[in-house]
């Protein structure tokens, strides 16, 4: 014995339910679209910030300046301490002369004019290439803490590490993430409310039909299914709009980054599979909202 409804029948009935209140259904779909677009945008920001952090982590350098008086043994001891730490790619030791030569190359010839050799700064330094995984602000903090500990070593005069800029970047990303989560949450809740109301109206306007269906032997599932699909269809429409918007935005941004800012970004600006997740997420939001409405108002 078959208990279920045919998919084509359910879809047709769901479509008829949508046509029963087209304006409200349209507003629901647009709200879902707006919420999902925002979720997509913030996901993109997070994704790109993550990429940026990774790139920064790979190109981080640390300069450990040593006292002029540091002996060769002390330099070796600091070097070994550095090399023993995880995430250290390479350590180069520069003598005072080598550091001075490097500074001479970095400074403009105009500045160097009239200066004698001894006035050009130079001191023994260990140049450290770091290959760090910077997935969170905690990773940066750990790095800062470690470099701070280096300052306590007797032969070390100073440690130069541009971590403050990284911390600022992480703080901005975290603020953006919080705003994104709150805004997306509010919009998703509004979208669910609209779907909930659309389905509730559909249930009320079809009370006679629901009663007749149960009298001729419809199972609760048969009666409820078109209403659930109605919600899922609104979510699907919203997801389709959001995916189109984000796709177009992605193309625009990519053109802007490449042609205007002349940057060669090696990664896609949208997280991989995000469009697919939106296409799944939209109907899921619609389905959840209609399930709440059906559960509350459709008593079979």
């Amino acid at each position, binding site marked *: 014995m078959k208990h279920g*409804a*045919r998919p*084509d029948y359910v879809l047709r009935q769901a479509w008829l339910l949508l046509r029963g209140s087209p304006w409200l259904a349209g507003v629901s779909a647009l709200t879902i679209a707006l919420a999902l677009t925002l979720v997509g945008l913030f996901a993109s920001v997070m994704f790109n910030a993550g990429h940026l952090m990774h790139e920064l982590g790979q190109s981080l350098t640390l300069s450990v300046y040593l006292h002029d008086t540091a002996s060769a043994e002390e330099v070796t001891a600091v070097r070994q301490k550095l090399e023993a730490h995880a995430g250290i790619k390479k350590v180069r030791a520069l003598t005072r002369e080598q550091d001075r030569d490097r500074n001479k190359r970095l400074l403009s010839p105009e500045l160097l004019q009239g200066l004698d050799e001894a006035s050009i700064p130079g001191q023994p330094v260990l140049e450290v290439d770091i290959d760090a995984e910077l997935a969170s602000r905690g990773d940066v903090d750990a790095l800062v803490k470690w470099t701070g500990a280096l300052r306590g070593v007797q032969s070390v005069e100073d440690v130069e590490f541009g971590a403050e800029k990284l911390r600022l970047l992480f703080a901005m990303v975290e603020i953006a993430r919080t705003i994104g989560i709150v805004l997306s949450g509010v919009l998703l809740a509004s979208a669910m409310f609209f779907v909930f109301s659309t389905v509730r109206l559909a249930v009320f306007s079809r009370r006679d*039909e629901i009663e*007749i269906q149960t*009298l*001729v*032997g419809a199972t609760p599932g*048969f009666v409820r299914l078109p209403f659930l699909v109605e919600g899922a269809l609104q979510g699907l429409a919203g997801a389709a709009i959001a995916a189109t918007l984000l796709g177009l935005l992605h193309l625009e941004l990519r053109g802007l980054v490449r042609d205007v800012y002349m940057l060669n970004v090696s990664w896609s600006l949208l997280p991989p599979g995000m469009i697919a997740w939106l296409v799944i997420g939209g109907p899921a939001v619609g389905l959840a909202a209609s399930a709440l409405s059906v559960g509350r108002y459709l008593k079979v």
Partner: protein
Amino acid sequence: MIQLYHVHKRYTNGTDALVDVTLRVREGEFVFLTGPSGAGKSTLLRLLMVMERATDGQILIGGRNIHVLRDASIPFLRRNIGMVFQDFRLIPRRTVYENVAIALEIMGLGPKEIERRVTQLLDGLRMMHRAQAFPGDLSAGEQQRVAIARALVNEPAILLADEPTGNLDPELGHDILQLLIDVGRRGTTVLVATHDHGLVERYGMRTLVLGRGQLLEDRPRQLGARITAETGLNPLAVALTESRQHAPDAPVELDIPDEVVP
């Protein structure tokens, strides 16, 4: 087919709608259920459809005790019972065809099978030419024919009719009743609730008389009762015969699964 043992129905406001009703309707029997308004006729039909549960007593349909039927099994019981109402209860947004087809859609039948059965039945009821009309465009008699078609299209073992002629003029009422008698002649157990004594007297079928919730009288079918239609000539009877999956004389078994996943 239908057995009631000491059935009692008391509503929450304290009204006794049925009091110690015991009766038996055999398979294929045509029975009138009569009595004044408030006698308990509709309540009895609602109990048979499990739209309500009896307060006390036992109700057996096709040997199944519906007093202990789980909620999840109710839809499957109802697929074995067609019901016709005084106010037709058609879905105004759906065409005549769709109103009849709904009883088959819920069973998950394919479009071709649905079309075959609905077309055959509407043909038999001389309603095929109105298949695409909406209930609001039909006369009262036509609407009741559509309601009967919906009740019969999935070949139920039992047909219940609650005041089926109540909204019709006498001529149309006679036509509808004749239709129901034809249905009974094809082996379906038919129970017709009516307060119209004239109608009951006219046909002389077995009659159960209710009064204040009690079964007052069980009048047997009179000899020479009016059965005008000949099975082989009536178009509805032909349609029902052709659409039936089982032989009319075969014992009817209700198709209610024991265990139903809700």
